[in-house]
């Protein structure tokens, strides 16, 4: 199985160090379009799609394998092996941050450091732990996703309204953005939002930067705090941003936070 094809890997730029960007739940590697230009001159930038998302090989979506995020962690290690034999800088958003966490526990030697954007090791409240949601909330999410995927299945063309004015939109943005097989999306949502990987936090010795949004419904501040306290080698940085995707809605602040971390610790 060709890993490049399976995960729609893009290699951009050159550099001594490889930086791997992993998108979060819902979309694909296009999320990183604001950050990529900044890093490609100094790093070898690797962009990929999680299996089941974007333009990954949907046929490779094995429901059994991806029943747990460990399935994706194994894929990530394979991708790293494909693109470099040096330890990488990993940037993971949302669920991919946890995927990176699991991979760093499994193969710590492959990670220079990891940058987590809007991560959460567990979404569901548990005793003193405030993940932010109840189980029924997660069920509701799955239903909502299901409803919308009915309208957004890849066979139907969207009506994008008012888009041409936006200069940021490149032509490579296709109609398949954020569209995927409804069944896979539903499954992925369940796996993501029902997962609990708090026990992996203390096991990851990889130097970690947690980018926490100031007003993030999905990964609230309580989670960021918890993570920083539980991980042996983690820094917490709060970005002023309403929402869950600072790399989209506050790209400069995000880039700045990442670069100062890297400079401080590695260069």
């Amino acid at each position, binding site marked *: 199985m060709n890993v490049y094809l399976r995960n729609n890997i893009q290699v951009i730029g050159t550099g001594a160090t490889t930086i791997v960007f992993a998108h979060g739940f*819902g979309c694909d590697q*296009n999320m990183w379009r604001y950050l990529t230009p900044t890093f490609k001159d100094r790093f070898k930038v690797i962009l990929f799609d999680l299996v089941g998302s974007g333009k990954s090989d949907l046929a490779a979506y094995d429901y059994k394998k991806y029943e747990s995020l460990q399935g994706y962690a194994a894929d990530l290690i394979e991708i790293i092996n494909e693109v470099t034999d040096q330890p990488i800088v990993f940037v993971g958003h949302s669920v991919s941050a946890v995927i990176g966490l699991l991979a760093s526990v499994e193969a710590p030697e492959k990670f220079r450091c990891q940058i987590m954007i809007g991560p959460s090791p567990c979404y569901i409240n548990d005793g003193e732990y405030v993940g932010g949601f109840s189980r029924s909330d997660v069920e509701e999410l799955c*239903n909502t996703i299901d*409803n919308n995927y009915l309208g957004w299945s890849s066979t139907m063309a969207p009506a994008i*309204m008012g888009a041409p004015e936006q200069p940021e939109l490149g032509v490579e943005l296709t109609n398949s953005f954020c569209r995927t097989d409804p069944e896979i999306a539903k499954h992925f949502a369940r796996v993501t939002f029902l997962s609990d990987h708090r026990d992996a936090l203390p096991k990851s010795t990889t130097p970690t930067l947690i980018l926490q949004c100031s007003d993030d419904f999905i990964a609230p501040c309580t989670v960021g705090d918890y993570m920083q306290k539980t991980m042996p080698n983690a820094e917490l940085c709060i970005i002023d941003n*309403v*929402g869950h995707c600072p790399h989209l809605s506050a790209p400069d602040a995000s880039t700045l936070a990442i670069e100062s971390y890297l400079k401080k610790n590695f260069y």
Partner: protein
Amino acid sequence: MDTLPDILSSFEYAACGLVTTEVNGTIRRVNTTFCKWLDFNADELVDAKKIQELFTVGGRFFHHTHWAPLLQLQGSVSEIQMDLVCRNGKTLPMLINVVRKKHGDLSFDQLAFFVATDRKNYERELLSTRKTAQDSLASLHEVQRELQKNRDFLSVAISSARMGIWSEDLHTHHVWLSPELEKLAGIGSEKFNNTHEAFLNLIHKDDQALFAGEVERAVREKADYNVEFRLQHAEGFWLAMEARGHATYSDSGEAVSIVGVVIDVSDSKATEEKLRELNQQLSINDRRKDEFLATLAHELRNPLAPMRNVLEIMRFKESTDPFMRWSRDLIERHVSQMTHLVDDLMETSRISQGRVELRKQQINIADAIQHAIETSHALMEKSKHNFIVNKPEVPIIIDADSTRIVQIISNLLTNAAKYTPDGGSISLSAVQHGDEAVISVRDSGIGIPREQLSNVFNMFSQLKPALERSQGGLGIGLALVRGLVELHGGTISAHSEGDGKGSEFIVRLPIAKLETNKQFAGETQNQNDVEYASSIDGLRILVVDDNVDAAESLALLLEIGGHNIRIAHDGMTGLAAAEEFRPDVVLLDIGLPDINGYEVARSIRQQLWGKEMNLIAATGWGQDKDKELAHNSGFNNHLTKPIDFQKLNALLQKT
């Protein structure tokens, strides 16, 4: 005056909800329609809430994971289906379009909302239907899998039984053969035409009419068909097949199709044929054996006759030499024993060949018992057996050959005596049970092992070879007894507790149906009396026999009886002797070396001097055919060889 409603009006009362928000979601403007739908006042929303706060939890998730990133990157999102939460907490399904546009330095989001209740319901229906269809499909697949599994199973069963299935659609005349049938007949489906004609052509042309006819009949009569035929294998050879099946009918009773099973019976037919051959062979062998035994018995008799004759002569020539007397007695005992053995063998083989004639009369069992006791008495006394007889109080009458009944009972008594050690006890009883006479002989002897009980009546079965040697016997006594009992329409059974525990033999015979109060037949002729021809005058007797010893010993015996004897050893000499000697009686052996006895007799009868001669034929087998031949050739009487002296004497007396 402009009669069009103004822009503001059009905005406020638009057919959809219109909302403007900041990029972070803060609501900056709402129209009346939106407020009405969600039951909010404008001031509760504008600058007071973020649009996300009107979403359900699931909606908020979605806003973060899909809505916001898309809007950021594409600048618009359309047809978002989401539930909004009204003032009173109830959810309202809505369809949303969003566009992000720059206005000066800032960007604003313009949202349009449509109530989508109907659409949601419709979609729900659709989803539900799809689910049902999927479930049905899954179910169907499951059933198909089951079916295929069963089919596979059945296929294995059918194949191993060398069976196949076929069917014909009576409308299209399309014939379907099951894979097993194709395999049996060695045809691949490409080769087979699947038409009625093609199927029929597989059948042997001599069987085609029968096959078609039987099937047709079954269809007409709404019955099953069952027909044998030959089917041609693709490689050319023929298979013996059996076809069974029936037609299926529509509701109106019209025949719709024929279904059937065909079974390859070649193997079983081959086996049947083999079995038949084996049976035939066995039959032939059995017959040959019977014939052999009969011949053997007969041949064994021949030497016995002259020996007995000589013994008789020796008796006459009384010797004072005790050694001579002892020798003679010894030889006689053994000749006698041999005679009995041979007679038994002869009888048994004649019974098995169906050549025994019974001379039935109504006899009293008590008389038969009496005679039997007399015969076996000596043996029982010698072994000091304790013998008890239970004679019936009332006469028990059976329709039977008296001689044979005596033979049966005395055989059983003799057996009892032979197989009971000295000092043991033997009992004999006869009673009437319903319409049967039940005779029982019980002894306290060596008994019969359980597994042998049914075997004892078979010829040549004997239980203890060692013992048998001392007692003598071929083991045919019981076979003979059973044969005789069954000839009388009765049954015999053996009973024993086992080794050393004695035995009991029970004979059941049907009681005679009495017609009137007849007097019963008297006692049988005692065959042990030897009658000598001493009361008659000497006759001139010519003995013609190519067996020199037999002829001479018989001649000697007759001479002692006072007759005048001449001997000849072949037909021509005999004829000459007859002419010259002019005997009263000619004893003519049929099997002569030159011309047979029938010829001699005819020649004698042609002569004047031969017309009144008493011609007695001596034939080998005593069959009716022989008797008839003898009679036709002019013989007055007929005796079976070897000549029994007593019988001969009886005939001579009549001369």
